[in-house]
């Protein structure tokens, strides 16, 4: 596969990454700002959500409405959000509008108006978002699971805490923005149809003069307990479980990905087969690799009616445990083809590539070429995966359930 990667570092440390895609007329871009949930000051859980809304409420010469109209006028398909490490803001659009869009995002990131009167609705929407989660147990269980699994502050809810949000002031929030919107640690990525020289010149002009100090490093606390149940008189028990595994930079990363694919890569994989096809216990069941820079885990979700919750949980855990007993050559091949195919198919989408190259750079300090990833996947074998599993077996589960009934976690 031909690689089309572009890379340029500004003198203030901001990293610009690009991936040219010949078959598309669109372009997608993203600014990855080091202001995620885990780096918010103590007592400000949820501030990142308020910030990611507030900065769009007027910037540069434009007020709230004018800015919204200008973004819409370019036909932007906005993307972004808050994760543990970052606030990301970006969009996908027709390639000819890229330069105008970057100008607007320069204003949003560097010259947001941050007016007091716009703070209240931004904060209120963040609070509404947290409250809305109570009516969305499937989503909530995974947020609570990460909170329980990762050491504080990594697992902090990306939605926020109501008490913290209610106490948050415009002054505190402005201070956080001033400290955290740090070009030295910001990544800009673009994928699709673009002229990289022109992009570099424009981003340098907007962001080049602003420098920032290095962000503080995280102080890790303990993870939560092993099991948490949240009572809810709904139709199903929503089960989330998570077990530690290796980081993206680890030599065993691809062995771990293959192991998860054997477990849950497709409908022929073990979880779907054992839990749904053979026993009819669930509609939704699946496991995924979930990584931060500092820690990683395998997450698993299943939703099932209360009388089947215990059996569902037991079957899932048994499947995790059984992995190290052996996997077949066919299972390995299916896992490999699945991972490689999805890699190639994702490479057809500009948004997906802009996200991936920025993620790689943050996690690894470099962008992995697609050919290299394919080669690494090809290198894995039944032996390598089993050796990995025997040395780093999936055990020590953290479990969260939401629903009318608890499960016994053994």
């Amino acid at each position, binding site marked *: 596969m031909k690689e089309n990667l572009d890379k340029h570092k500004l003198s203030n440390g901001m990293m610009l990454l690009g991936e040219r895609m010949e*078959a*598309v*007329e*669109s372009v997608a871009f993203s600014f990855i700002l080091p202001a995620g949930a885990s780096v918010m000051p103590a007592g400000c859980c949820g501030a990142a959500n308020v910030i990611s809304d507030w900065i769009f*409420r007027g910037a540069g010469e434009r007020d*709230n409405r004018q800015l*919204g*109209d200008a*973004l*819409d*006028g*370019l*036909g*932007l398909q*906005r993307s972004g959000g808050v994760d543990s490490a970052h606030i990301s803001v970006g969009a996908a*659009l*027709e390639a000819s509008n890229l330069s105008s869009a970057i100008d607007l995002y320069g204003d949003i990131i560097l010259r947001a108006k941050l007016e007091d009167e716009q703070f*209240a*609705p*931004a904060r*209120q*929407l963040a609070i*509404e978002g947290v*409250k*809305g989660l*109570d*009516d*969305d147990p499937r989503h909530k269980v995974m947020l609570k699971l990460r909170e329980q699994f990762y050491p504080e502050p990594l697992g902090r809810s990306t939605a926020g805490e109501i008490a913290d949000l209610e106490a948050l002031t415009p002054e505190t929030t402005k201070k956080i923005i001033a400290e955290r919107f740090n070009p030295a640690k910001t990544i800009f990525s673009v994928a699709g149809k673009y002229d990289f020289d022109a992009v570099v010149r424009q981003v340098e002009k907007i962001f080049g003069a602003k420098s920032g100090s290095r962000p503080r490093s995280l102080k890790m606390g303990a993870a939560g307990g092993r099991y948490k149940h949240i009572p809810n*008189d*709904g*139709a*199903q028990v*929503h089960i989330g479980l998570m077990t530690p595994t290796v980081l993206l930079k680890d030599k065993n990363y691809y062995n771990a990905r293959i192991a998860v694919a054997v477990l849950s*890569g*497709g*409908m*022929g*994989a073990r979880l*779907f*087969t054992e839990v749904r*096809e053979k026993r*009819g*216990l*669930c*509609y*939704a069941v699946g496991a995924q690799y979930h990584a931060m820079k500092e820690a990683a885990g395998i997450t698993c979700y299943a*939703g099932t*009616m209360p009388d089947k919750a215990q059996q569902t949980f037991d079957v899932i855990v048994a499947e995790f445990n059984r992995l190290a007993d052996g996997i077949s050559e*066919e299972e390995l*091949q*299916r896992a490999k*083809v699945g*991972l490689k*195919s999805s890699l*190639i*198919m994702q*490479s*057809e989408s*500009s*948004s997906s590539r802009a996200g991936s190259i920025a993620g790689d750079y943050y996690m690894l300090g470099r962008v992995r070429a697609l050919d290299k990833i394919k080669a690494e996947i090809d290198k894995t074998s039944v032996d390598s995966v089993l050796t990995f599993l025997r040395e780093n077996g999936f055990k020590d589960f953290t479990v969260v359930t939401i629903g009318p009934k608890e499960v016994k976690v053994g």
Partner: protein
Amino acid sequence: MEFKSHKLTNGLTVIGEVNKNAKSTAVGFFVKTGSRDEDLKINGVSHFLEHMVFKGTERLSPFAVNEAFDKTGAQYNAFTSEEGTVFYAAVLPEYLAEITRLWIEMMRPALRTEDFNIEKQVIKEEIAMYKDQPSFDVMDRCRAIYFAGHPCGHSVLGSEESIDAMTAEQMRGYFSQRYAPNNMVAVFAGNFEWEQIRDMVEAGCGDWKNQDVKRTITDTRGARGKQRLDKANLTREHICLMSPAVSAQSDKRFAAALLSMIVGDDVGSRFFWELVDKAIVETASFDFAPMDGTGAYCTYVRCSGENTAKAMKIVASIFVDLTKTGVTEDELTKAKNKVLSAFVIKNEIPMGRLVDLGFNWTYLGQYRPVEDDVKAVKAVTVAEINALLKEYPLGEFAQFSLGPAQNG
């Protein structure tokens, strides 16, 4: 892009749009059958049948089907609506022939009773899952009020009772009536060799028997009415409104799509500025749902109990204002930009293109190149949208709300 089509003597149509630059290919079978085509006694059978297709054939066990897909790395699934059942896969070009053969074989499923009984449990879990998603549940319930007596009001999933009562024999009967070649289209998009695919479909599907397949198509302006249901475990108010709109065949569908963007896109719309930006509600959307011979607009609002009355007053005033004074040039220009960029981005990917190709063929019986739809969107005028607002006033709706128990 090159369009190809071929009709077998039994009525099955194969269509394809070839894009040699694509890295993948998407393949789908679009079956024109959904909950609107069901007898209420077997409500949910279309969707249940979609699941059963994956349970294999006389030759293939359920596990063999799943493994056959997985070993190609295909991204595959299916969905059922009130109107249609769609089976699809996106694959790398080297696996297309294998996956096409597999789908062809699966379109004549075994429908074994033992698989039916296990899958029944999965369907009931799916019904339970959606009960825990009030944003879905409220729309389903509102739909039933709005389409009272009209087949588009039939639930896609069915109820626990209708699923419990259903037999494999009833499903086989439904299958033999609805999965007729003249009620299906095989669709391809992306990087593939047309002749190879056409011949493969001809060879694999040529002996399927055609049937006299009917669908009752009547337009409806829907019923009105307002209902609310308490659910003790909810904390927010979930509100759904439905009102009449043009059908999937109407030339006015582009105007209706642009109107829905102006009223209820997640940013920059009237709902956004009046309700979300001011933090009166957490979320508010307005969608145009074009259907076979009829259509509806669907509003969804989620907010706190104390803001509900205020929010609904604002929604009503937005609707009144639109009917009275219409949309502006500026709003229409922005809506066009958003609709067009979303459309172009979606159609860059074979899987996105497949859906439009299949639905255009199912509803209109025609191929529409991307450029034709782009032109049609660009041509819509403010006057056309305003006339549409007079013809289909937004203020006359059915309403369903779900929320926590109310005091007093």
